[in-house]
């Protein structure tokens, strides 16, 4: 059993004897244009079936809804007015100030991004946030930890992948993911129009029905030294792919850049190896609180508490045995 929480190199933890650097995404939502090329490129490459009921979902231009068994990239659309923008800027500024305890009033230090010129940039009374979500490929992956069959495994690139031929669809991983990413694929079908000419009757059966499915970070492409499909397609490089360390570095530079421009609402998500999942393989730059994008504000890999749980369970077992003993030892009363 490897480490269950805290900073670590997941690849080493998984006993890979090699030196592939860990791979990951950096999704910079500040330059996302919401085109959904990532969603389509992903489906195209992975042959994921269409899902949904072909209806407007009632969430701006997002008709995908969330990540799921057949949607491994999901673009969120959020419309916000000035009040919320101000709040976001404030909450971001509060983050900047965190861990910088001061005595007395803040010193007028202009190099401090929290105190930098924060004249709001031009479009401030309204904004439309777009963000492409994906599997986080956590350092401590809940799905992977709880998988009973070994179908989920840690690759040599530090990513987390399902082996379709091993998974028996127990569904534990679905509940194990703090981000709601992995899902068991139902055998929903590719919906087609009512009337088609005869030759179109046959539609490909939904592949991998009944088993857990999620982003593989294009494992099949990585082994061929190819960029994942979504990152390759992304027209504005909002989705960047590379060595995890470099991605984190880029993300940190970018957020510093935006702070310098007064955009204190910018913040990183998943770039901290001390967080509840040991940092994520997919790092994001967000412009508001994570929950606004449907991301958990303080995720924690459930397995981090597993030792406690086993201890408590052990105690309970002992209690049960004691109760049984007590029941019998009372004699034939």
């Amino acid at each position, binding site marked *: 059993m490897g480490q269950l929480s805290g900073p670590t190199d997941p690849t080493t933890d998984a006993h890979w004897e090699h030196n592939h650097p860990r791979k990951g995404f950096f999704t910079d939502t500040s*330059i*996302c*244009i*919401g*085109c*959904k*090329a990532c*969603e*389509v490129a992903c*489906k*195209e490459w992975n042959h994921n*079936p*269409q*899902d*949904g009921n*072909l*209806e*407007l979902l*009632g969430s*701006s*231009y997002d*008709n*995908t809804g969330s990540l799921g068994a057949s949607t491994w990239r999901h673009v969120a659309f959020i*419309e916000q*007015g000035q009040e919320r923008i101000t709040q976001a800027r404030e909450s971001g500024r509060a983050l900047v100030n965190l861990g910088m305890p001061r005595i007395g009033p803040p010193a007028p230090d202009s190099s401090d991004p929290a105190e930098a010129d924060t004249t709001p*940039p*031009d*479009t401030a009374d*309204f*904004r*439309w*946030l*777009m963000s492409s979500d994906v599997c986080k490929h956590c350092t401590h992956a809940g799905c992977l930890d709880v998988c009973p069959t070994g179908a989920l495994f840690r690759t040599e690139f530090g990513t987390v992948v399902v082996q379709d031929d091993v998974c028996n669809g127990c569904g534990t991983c679905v509940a194990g993911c703090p981000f709601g990413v992995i899902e068991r694929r139902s055998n929903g079908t*590719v*919906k*087609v*129009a*009512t*009337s*088609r*000419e005869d030759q179109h009757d046959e539609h490909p059966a939904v592949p991998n029905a009944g088993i857990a499915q999620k982003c593989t970070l294009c494992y099949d492409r990585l082994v061929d030294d190819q960029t994942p499909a979504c990152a390759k397609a992304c*027209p*504005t*490089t909002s989705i960047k792919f590379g060595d995890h360390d470099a991605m984190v570095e880029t993300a940190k530079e970018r957020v510093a850049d935006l702070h310098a421009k007064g955009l204190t609402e910018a913040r990183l998500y998943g770039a901290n190896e001390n967080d509840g999942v040991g940092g994520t393989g997919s790092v994001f730059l967000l412009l508001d609180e994570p929950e606004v994008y449907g991301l958990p504000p303080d995720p924690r890999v459930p397995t981090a508490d597993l030792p406690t749980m086993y201890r408590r369970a052990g105690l309970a077992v002992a209690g049960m045995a004691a109760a049984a003993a007590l029941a019998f030892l009372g004699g034939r009363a």
Partner: protein
Amino acid sequence: MANADCIVIQGSNMAECHPVGYQWVAEAKARGAKVIHVDPRFTRTSAVSDKHIPIRAGSDVVLLGALINYVISNDLWFKEYVGAYTNAATLVHDDYRDAEDLGGLFSGFDAGKGAYDTSSWGYAERGEGAIDEPGPGSEHGADATARAAGHSYGSGGPPLEHAEVQRDDSLQDPRTVFQIVKRHYARYTAEMVQDMCGISVADFEYLVRAITDNSGRDRTTCFAYAVGWTQHSLGAQFIRAAAILQLLLGNMGRPGGGIMALRGHASIQGSTDIPTLFNLLPGYLPMPSAGRHDSLDEYLATIGSKQQKGYWANADAYTISLLKAWWGEAANADNDWAYDYLPRLTGAHGTYETVMGMLDDEVEGYFLLGQNPAVGSAHGRMQRLAMAHLKWMVVRDLNLIESATWWKDGPEIESGELRTEDIETEVFFLPAATHVEKAGSFTQTQRLLQWRHKAVAPPGECQSELQFFFELGQRIREKLADSDDERDRPLLDLTWDYPTDKHGDPDPEAVLAEINGRHLDGPDAGAPLSAYTELRADGSTAAGCWIYTGVYADGVNHAANRKPGQEQGPAASEWGWAWPANRRILYNRASADPAGKPWSERKKYIWWDQDQGKWIGDDVPDFPVDRAPGSHPDPSVGGPEALSGDDPFIMQADGKGWLFAPKGLLDGPLPTHYEAQESPVANALYPQQQSPARLVFPRADNPSAPSAGTKGADIYPYVFTTYRLTEHHTAGGMSRWLPYLSELQPEMFCEVSPELATERGLEPYGWATIISPRSAIEAKVLVTDRMVPLKVGGHTVHQIGLPYHWGVGNNAVVSGDAANDLLGVTLDPNVQIQESKVASCDIRPGRRPRGEELLALVAEYRERAGVTMETGNAAVTNPSAEGVDPTLED
């Protein structure tokens, strides 16, 4: 574009419609460029711009005019550039009267014909009078409209007899172009912008500061537009207005400057270069018109005078080479190179006239080649009803589009207007090949030809258009082989002998070679031409499209050039081939100052190298390469030889950039604000409401809503604008059949502001019915703060956004009502493009009625509004205020 310091995206939703092109904007922005989006809606482009400025649809000329006015009155124009490279100093004819003086009309308006006589707009000649337009007699605007004349100038300006013009380099003479422009826009102020466009003074000042701060020697501003500008009754003038501004600021012909047209389709540029357009022959040569081009000499004289400056002076060589390419030996000096094999135009024969011709039973047969007019063309109802009048039609597409199935499941079947059993039309559906199942070239929006190789054979009975038309041509020629009818000669004499592969597929490279052209005589006979300058008017060369000459130079398919971008300079001249002559920036001579030196080190592109005695730089110079900056040849020699060293605009007849258009436009020499055909706003600038020269079609089946100030305008109180989404492709033929795209935008919707939703009781994500004088459609309601009501002319204007990708049918993965059904047909007189970006409507909650009740609803609205065939169709709004004798009106 990546080199720009400021990018103004207006009339385009670039991030949404051209996501990959947008990477260059994103890159410029990352480097510090300011990106401003001016658009009625807050779109995905606005979301990633520095600023979004909401504008009332159709009021763009007011804004651009005010920018021009601001630049002139605050002395912010680029003096050296404007003085040397534009026609600012040129004097205009004495008879010219501006729209400022005539209540919105320019001099020469013929109210009877609803068109301009443009002769008074000409330059003043040295001596006296105006420069005559070449060719026999003066052409009336009404006739020019019929030729969609504006479209013919895709590669340059219209002709002038010669370039000996009167100038006043001090720009003080009131007859100079500069003074005329200055006066014309004097009333286009920030306040007018606020009143007409709904843009606050602060936002206007932000915009003007961004543009002027980023123009000049060191910096450049770029404008990007798309169909948001072209699809208006004054579309061409929107673009002209931007061009005037860009010329004044010195942003034309320079890196990071210019006006970028963002076209919607893979080869839409190509399909105007090699036009499937009624009024053009390949290379922007006009189709001959009866009465105007009855002989080859007349024809050539009207295209380009031998005495004018620049490359159009050689139109004879281009034309005769085309005739040689088509009719080979049958085209010879004795029969005027088979000029009479060409059919003649007698009026406008554009797609909308064609549709009306169908309704009048004049058209029997119709080919739809990858086009879905039942959904994608304005006034979809008229399109479908017209198709029911055809004897036969051929639909070639990948999927069973609505234009192929309208007889079965179209909206008119549902409403009972048409009965399948009564429709006589024979319909042939022929499956087409996709882009990977055939080889060929696309020309993209920056005139770059890129070759596609064939990856696989088409499945089943699918065929490329190339193969289909080649075979169709062969069959027709076989069937007519014995004909001795003279009318069949052009078909029988046609060069139609392309080599084919074993499947009978003609070799597209052979076609490309024919387009490129070859030598017919002399030592090089048979060899491919390498540049259009090699074309001759003596029958010794043949070329199917002169502007593409060079693409097959040395027998090499340069469109297939694929040197990786990362291995070349920024102009990437070894990837594909750009016409003309592989130039990436047109008129790039203007990137250097009159003396030939770069305007600045930062914006260096093409410059004069004194030692080598030629122009050099990052691109192919768009100029005679050895013409020294200071040279001043005798202008009377005509042609390229007459270009001075400081005449960068080599396709214009005087070598200058046109602030004022003395020729070529049919609706005014200067962009002037008129309201759209249907508008709830009165024109605050002039008594004249709509463009007087717009093309209207007063027919019972093409009614217009009353405009502001007339009775019934309040029945259709809202403005709607149509647009597209990233996830879909035009009429949906290539997207609504694909599950991956359909699921991303599954249903037709309309975008409305919360205010409008409250006003009309619209439920978010519920249904609404939108009613225009033509039709009514239903859509899901997307209530969003991205739509903002604008305060215009004292009242609130609500705009409704409608994507136009859906259509009614049973075959696609997703379907829905078509926004284009709401539109009527009103056209820009210059290019005959319809006005589909703005029109009037009403909206109410709930789904639309079905069957006959739908027609009753639309009729009831028309009745309440008092709509008649005349509504909105008067050429002159207020004759007495505009100096027009009202008796001349029809």
